[in-house]
């Protein structure tokens, strides 16, 4: 008889978007259970999540830890401006070169999910300083696309359980 103890592998999951202020923050918050996965939250709940609409433009590119999911995986979010495909390629290449197991990480683009309302809201808040209205508009946009976020996170979680 063999007594084999299987140790769960801890993954690094990075959700990324344009500025790391809205889409990636919401997706990582859903992943960590900060936002509900069975219903659509209201705007206030969305605005209250940590780091929502608070990314400093001078610090875009830094991966920030949102939390740990139920499997112990580390969930990060980050902004990549309009360099999403270039930077994700760069990161994947570095990981390949360093011979790190390809199953140890997941990079997920969240930017294609968000609609015009969130983009305009983000612009109003971050570029023009109309913070309150911009934040509300972006959260309203997130609400409208919330089921797309749930699907995305569900697929990511499914792929982590396949590893």
């Amino acid at each position, binding site marked *: 008889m063999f007594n084999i103890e299987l140790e769960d592998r801890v993954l690094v999951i990075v959700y990324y978007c344009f500025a790391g202020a809205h889409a990636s923050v919401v997706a990582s918050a859903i992943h960590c259970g900060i936002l509900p996965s069975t219903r659509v939250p209201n705007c206030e709940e969305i605005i209250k999540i940590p780091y929502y609409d608070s990314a400093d433009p001078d610090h*875009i*590119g830094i991966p920030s830890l949102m939390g740990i999911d139920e499997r112990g995986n580390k969930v990060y979010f980050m902004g990549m401006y309009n360099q999403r495909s270039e*930077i994700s390629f*760069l990161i994947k290449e*570095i*990981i390949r*070169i360093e011979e790190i197991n390809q199953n140890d*990480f997941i990079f997920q683009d969240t930017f294609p999910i968000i609609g015009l309302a969130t983009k305009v809201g983000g612009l109003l808040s971050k570029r023009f300083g109309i913070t309150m209205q911009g934040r509300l508009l972006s959260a309203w946009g997130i609400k409208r696309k919330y089921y797309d976020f749930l699907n995305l996170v569900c697929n990511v979680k499914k792929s982590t359980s396949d590893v």
Partner: protein
Amino acid sequence: MIIIYYSPFKRIAWLAAQTHLGKFSADDICLLQKNFICWGKDRNGNNVCSLTYHRQHQQLYKYALQGIGTLFNINIVCIDVDEGLYRNKQLKMWHIIIVAWNVPIFYDRCIKLVMNNLQSIIV
């Protein structure tokens, strides 16, 4: 360790990486469209790469590289090739542009100058 040679000019970054690896030729550079290329390992086992992006994104890439280095415990060194080249006063912007854009006029003279200067910035 990963050593990355950065320049907004693709060919300059490629040249620096090739010089590091001891391949002193600009002719065998293939026309790859990728912004990041790993050219191989040097004698010390370091991966030598080239990276190109617009200088306005410098901070973004710096943070992303630092972040990925921390997340996966990878030692990444990024060298700004142009900055290193300009330190030498005998090298002017137009020398670099002629090499970077592969302009036939004065090419031989410029590539010689650039390659001589590259030696001083190779880690």
